[in-house]
């Protein structure tokens, strides 16, 4: 184990104590001690309902919560902290945009372009928004390696185009998209780009201004923060123009029997008691990531993926979904094995204490487009080691033999 690996792993209690080789980071990540401590600190020393009480505890809770917003805004280089809306997760963030921006901007005949590689959470909300408004969903298909051709996008765009919904990194292929270039195309047509950053924000430095993103959604729990806290970034003038998503407490200015005035952003979109503990956990995760440094995190994860992809290419009957080049896979490598169902593959890995995900990864349209029913996915985090990738490869080599195939090159585990 390298010094970096040893040092990082020591920060994660579950990683230190579990025998599990955890390679399901695309689903959720483990939490470092500092995040857990921060959540505790919030509840032990400053818990009160933020933005309501005039007493000291509530003021402190409000300040801590708003500070988490500022830290998050700086993390993705948003111009204004008010452009950060705290949600439960990326799914809620994307539902918020589709519902609220949809209600504001979509009308019959309009078109929403959705990439075929979207997670269902950046697809289904647009299907429903289209049903409500009379707009139409148009698919942006990818090449067999999961890459998107910008010229194809240019052909899809027309005067009816209002939205492009696309991920920064695919949760199946690990393919990274050129968001800034896509944003240029959609902006020229007068539309907005809604980016699902769930698989990119945890793994590489994100600058919403460089990406030219109008909206960016991501989840805390995939970036070492607790479950139940997520983020929607939106450009302020867009958020200002949108109607609220949820109605209730702490999202109003005045309410009488006759009329209501809603609060300003971001509070307009944060109805009800907020997840202040979660927001502080997210802040701690951001600070932890910043302390480790994306230069080191991205380099480490690249090394892990390179080791995996190069090893996998050597194994007969293993087929990687997506690009040939290790650098095409940003933290994620999905694969199929000839003649072995992905559920059997992940079952065998589970019996060796290696956690992988099998199925369609909530991206059925992509699987259908690539003509695979389901896949097995391994996805790395900053605490994974090259030794773990070697273990993964050893088990992978043995699978066909375990399933009764008599191949020319037979592998058995020692």
């Amino acid at each position: 184990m390298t010094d970096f690996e040893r040092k990082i792993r020591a920060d994660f209690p579950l990683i230190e104590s579990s025998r599990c080789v955890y390679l399901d980071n695309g689903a959720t990540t483990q939490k470092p001690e500092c995040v857990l401590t921060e959540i505790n600190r919030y509840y032990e020393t400053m818990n009160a309902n933020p933005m309501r009480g005039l007493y000291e505890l509530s003021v402190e809770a409000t300040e801590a919560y708003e500070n988490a917003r500022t830290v998050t805004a700086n993390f993705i280089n948003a111009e204004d902290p008010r452009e950060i809306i705290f949600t439960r997760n990326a799914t809620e963030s994307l539902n918020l945009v589709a519902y609220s921006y949809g209600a504001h901007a979509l009308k019959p005949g309009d078109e929403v372009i959705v990439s075929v590689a979207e997670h269902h959470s950046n697809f289904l909300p647009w299907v429903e928004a289209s049903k409500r408004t009379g707009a139409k969903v148009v698919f942006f298909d990818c090449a067999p390696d999961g890459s998107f051709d910008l010229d194809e996008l240019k052909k899809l765009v027309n005067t009816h185009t209002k939205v492009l919904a696309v991920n920064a990194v695919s949760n199946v292929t690990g393919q990274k998209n050129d968001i800034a270039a896509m944003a240029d195309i959609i902006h020229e047509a007068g539309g907005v780009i809604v980016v699902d950053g769930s698989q990119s924000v945890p793994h590489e430095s994100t600058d919403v201004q460089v990406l030219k993103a109008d909206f960016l959604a991501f989840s805390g729990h995939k970036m070492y923060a607790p479950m139940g806290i997520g983020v929607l970034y939106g450009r302020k003038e867009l958020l200002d123009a949108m109607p609220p998503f949820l109605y209730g407490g702490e999202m109003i200015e005045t309410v009488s029997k006759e009329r209501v005035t809603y609060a300003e952003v971001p509070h307009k979109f944060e109805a009800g008691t907020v997840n202040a503990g979660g927001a502080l956990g997210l802040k701690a995760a951001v600070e932890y990531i910043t302390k480790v440094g994306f230069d080191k995190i991205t380099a480490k994860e690249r090394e892990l993926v390179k080791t995996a992809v190069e090893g996998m290419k050597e194994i007969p009957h293993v087929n990687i979904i997506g690009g040939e080049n290790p650098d095409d896979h940003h933290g994620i490598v999905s694969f199929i094995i000839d003649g072995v169902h992905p559920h059997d593959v992940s079952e065998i890995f589970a019996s060796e204490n290696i956690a992988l995900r099998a199925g369609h990864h909530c991206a059925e349209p992509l699987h259908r487009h690539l003509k695979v029913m389901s896949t097995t996915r391994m996805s790395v985090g900053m605490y994974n080691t090259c030794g773990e990738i070697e273990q993964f490869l050893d088990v992978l080599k043995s699978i066909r033999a375990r399933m009764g195939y008599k191949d020319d090159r037979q592998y058995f585990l020692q």
Partner: protein
Amino acid sequence: MTGNTFYNEIINEHNLKPYHKRAVEGANFTLEGVNPSCGDDIVLELKVEDGIIVDGGFTGDGCAISQASADIMLDLIIGKSQEEAIRLSDIFLRMIKGSITDEEKEELEEAGILESVSHMPARVKCAVLGWRTMRELFGRTD
């Protein structure tokens, strides 16, 4: 590495060379069984004459457990009466829930090797797909 998977020779054999994976000529009972969450999808066909299952087969795709289990089931029920097939499937379903006697397990013949699925909650649906589909074919929807 000492991981003990339950993919043994019997399961592998039934998965790789399913004897009953074919369309059945003259089938008078046909039903598709699907596990939407994992994509197991089979079509079960049975030919029943005078209450006796005289022939049966299945087509489709799925994991080794779903495929092997369907093949093993057909081994067991072909030649038996509808009622007997239902009774055996009662035993099988109880086995997967973890409550049968040794004598009952004997009656299931090779299907008894799927008992360990009772410790694998995520795979129960795969193991029972063929059996559930057969019960539905005969009007049992419980």
